[in-house]
């Protein structure tokens, strides 16, 4: 590179200006397509979106659009609805991811050993992933509905509830409706990725461990888990970010209700932007969510790096 640069400088004295310009811009022209693509597709929308957070953008107010500095964030700091949405997001993402992961891991472990009809079982396990989120949201909403769905009656018959009521209209329990739907819908993701990781573990390690005297639990803890750890870290990261941003099921099943009890930050953004049409405030919330998720991602990536270094 430096050789080329020095030789071009050497002869630059004799070349016309246009040619020298072309030569100087040559490396930039090579990277231009990639740069233009990144700027157009990623940076411009991002910067526009970020800029809304510092402007007063309300669709119903034709005089809005002015710069308001950190005003949105000051309002946000004392917004009780936002604080509750933040808490709900923790429950929503935490419960959904941990349950999806637990059941996904169990399924992956079951599917990892050979049995008759394994191919069919695998296909069935992966089925929920193919169902559109809106459809599964509607489906579950109906299942929780005592008029058309069986679940309230089953819960009542088992003595879990005192009457066949709709879970989604109970302010203390409503959050669990979308969580259950989300767990059902998201298990396949963990099952697929963990199964792939499981199948990459050399079999003879298990044989060596069983000869060394390890029982099934010890083999799981000393071989399976260390091998899965990097995959677990990356899938949990992806799913947490995705689920924290994932409002489809909540919008379809409860629309944030009853009384904002199922409002998560993502659905709160949706409500602010498309119900109240306050794009500025919605953008400010989105920026806060972005910063939180980026911090979280950074921590997970660091964790994963340390796991990979050990392995």
């Amino acid at each position: 590179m430096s050789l080329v640069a020095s030789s071009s400088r050497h002869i630059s004295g004799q070349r016309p200006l246009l040619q020298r310009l072309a030569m100087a811009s040559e490396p930039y022209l090579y990277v231009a397509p990639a740069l233009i693509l990144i700027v157009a597709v990623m940076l411009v929308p991002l910067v526009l979106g970020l800029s809304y957070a510092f402007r007063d953008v309300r669709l119903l107010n034709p005089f809005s659009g002015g710069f308001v500095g950190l005003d949105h964030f000051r309002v946000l700091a004392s917004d009780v609805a936002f604080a509750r949405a933040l808490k709900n997001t923790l429950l929503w993402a935490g419960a959904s991811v941990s349950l999806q992961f637990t059941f996904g891991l169990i399924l992956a472990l079951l599917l990892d050993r050979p049995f008759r009809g394994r191919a069919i079982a695998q296909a069935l396990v992966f089925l929920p992933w193919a169902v559109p989120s809106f459809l599964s949201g509607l489906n579950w909403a109906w299942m929780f509905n005592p008029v058309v769905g069986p679940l309230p009656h089953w819960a009542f018959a088992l003595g879990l509830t005192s009457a066949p009521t709709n879970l989604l209209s109970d302010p203390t329990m409503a959050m669990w409706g979308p969580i259950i739907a989300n767990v059902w819908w998201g298990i396949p993701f963990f099952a697929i990725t963990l199964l792939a990781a499981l199948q990459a573990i050399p079999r003879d390690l298990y044989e060596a461990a069983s000869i060394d005297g390890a029982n099934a639990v010890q083999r799981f803890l000393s071989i399976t888990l260390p091998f899965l750890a990097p995959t677990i870290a990356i899938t949990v990261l992806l799913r947490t970010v995705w689920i924290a941003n994932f409002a489809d099921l909540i919008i379809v099943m409860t629309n944030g209700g009853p009384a904002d009890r199922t409002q998560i930050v993502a659905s709160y953004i949706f409500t602010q932007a498309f119900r109240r049409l306050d794009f500025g405030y919605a953008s400010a919330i989105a920026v806060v969510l972005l910063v939180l998720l980026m911090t979280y991602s950074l921590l997970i990536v660091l964790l994963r790096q340390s796991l990979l270094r050990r392995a």
Partner: protein
Amino acid sequence: MASIDIVGIRKAYGALQILHGIDLTIRDGEFIVLVGPSGCGKSTLLRMIAGLEDISAGEIRIDGRRVNDLPPRDRDIAMVFQSYALYPHMTVAENMSYSLRLRKTGREKIAAAIDGAASILGLNTLMERRPKALSGGQRQRVAMGRAIVRAPKAFLFDEPLSNLDARLREQMRGEIKKLHHSLSATSVYVTHDQIEAMTLADRIVALNGGVVQQVGTPLDLYDRPANLFVAGFIGSPAMNMIEGRYRSDRVSAWVELAEGLILPLHKTLQRAGIDEEEAADVEDGAAVTIGIRPEHIFLDPGVGGFEATVELIEPTGLGTILHLRLGGVSFKAFSLERSDAAIGDRLSVSLPPERLHAFDAADGVRLI
């Protein structure tokens, strides 16, 4: 240390029979090598002793105790895998101490055990490394170290040297033999390499197609192979096999090779302790395969030799392999002498009768 009894062991995967009834008694402290071509069932047999494969029929006893239904962890055996199967996320020390930690052995005892094993195997400076930072030979040593720290009842080796280069293989072979001398542990060693089998074994078990072909000391198998398979498998370069017809009259026995070549069998019969009278059991005119090892063919015997044509010369450094043709028969001769013969030369060779092996041409069983 323990003895291992294998009684009528069979293994089948569905309709596919892998082992057809193996009987073998391994004595306490003995080094047994299971040898055979790939697919002969030797690894399967080893894995059945370890408890990694179910036993379809028969019984395995370790120290007199039936272990058919015991899981590997309760059999108190150690195994060295072909791939070494080291735990990649553990250091060398952790790999070696894993079995002891599972048995809740005391910290000091563990330290003493792995220190002992490490100094036997020369691993002391590598104890904090992970397997990926080790060379093939070092990994192999760690796998051995993992086996010896526990002082198990028996060691099982599943082609432990086949992933090493030739020089390292030779070196490790020596170390395994030394290790066996100092520990005198019951060992079962699987290999397809007949040199490993010959050099390591107290007794060799030659397997083919899931059937034991011969059990004996390395020199037994070399000197008196029980059948054509063992004859061809043991020894390098391989034994020459020549089709012929057994002839005898009341006075002597001989073999007619192709094109009227005649090999007298007189001394062969004497060596085998067979009276020429008894040898008449072999029907006059029976089809036989005559075997003779390349290193037993005399070159330039002077009188009484056959005239053979040199077809190819392979110098090995140690000696020379000559590819010869005699009448319609091709065979090899190995000589420690450096040969100055050239291709096309005619050499006088003799096939000493006492070095001849005769096998039934139909079923390959040794006749003489």
